[in-house]
């Protein structure tokens, strides 16, 4: 099914969850902020949040330093 990630179309398997998406994108779940359909997700919910056709995501990676 198709999602939009950071403005670009992206294909994932049916029944994917956020944690699987992050594995697919090779992103560390502890170093990203995810906005799903205008809501910022809590890290603890990544495994339980199922993706649907047409979902819009912003995925922002963070780097250390401050």
């Amino acid at each position, binding site marked *: 099914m198709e999602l939009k990630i950071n403005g670009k179309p992206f294909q994932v398997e049916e029944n994917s969850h956020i944690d699987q998406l992050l594995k697919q994108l090779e992103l560390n779940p502890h170093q990203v902020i995810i906005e799903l359909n205008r809501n*910022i997700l809590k890290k603890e919910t990544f495994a339980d949040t199922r993706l649907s056709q047409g979902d819009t995501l912003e995925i922002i990676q*963070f*780097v*250390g330093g*401050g």
Partner: protein
Amino acid sequence: MNIFINERATSISSNTTLHQLLRENKPDADLLIVNGFPQKEDIVLQEGDRVIFITRGEQPTAEELEALMMSRHTPGVHEKIRQSSVGIAGAGGLGSNIAVALARIGVGHLTIVDFDLVEPSNLNRQQYFIDQIGLSKVAALRNNLKRINPLVNVTAINKKVTSDNIVEFFSDLDVMTEAFDAATEKTMLISGFLSIFPDTPLVAASGLAGYGPSNTIITEHVAQNLYIVGDGCSAAKPGQGLMAPRVGIAAHHQANAVLRLLLGEKPG
């Protein structure tokens, strides 16, 4: 007509000039500021003008201190922000610089949380002094802020922020800032704060290490109520340190974003 002299409302006759006002009120003043900008030439005053007279070398009275400190502000800014409350998670390179900038402009209340102590490796970028090594950062910063602007209320909490205590430390804020070091702490704070307070804007930072170009540090509106400052990629790591110039740029991007949000403007 009505004008303000050192923030005191005063009635004067029309066509009064600045230098006349000076002679009548504070003839020894050598710095004249009108509506936020130094004014050397004589001008005719207008209704509502805000005039500040400062005599170099003279200690201001307690009543006048606030007005004189804020006399170079854009008119109207200080009245708005002196009622505001800003949170700062982390009192390191970003947090201490953000706190100093916001204290200088007179934000009413700052809540600053950090568990750490001042140690020598902090001093290449953080707003602490040699004689503060060993003190808790929040206590040292609070002292520094009091010396900069005694009128700012500072809540200094010497604890580690976790997702469980965000609600306890950072309630009732107008704007929140993320000023941590580790990427995992940044995301913990951001997702934790915005899920509890989705309507409070948060200004975070990512990518400010090294001595790369200043111009790649930007402020971006990335998601509802989330603004990120930095270049997004310059991580602190072996071979790439954190140093005052570039850290300061990011911190001041954050502070200016906070100011804009407090004044109803969109940062970035």
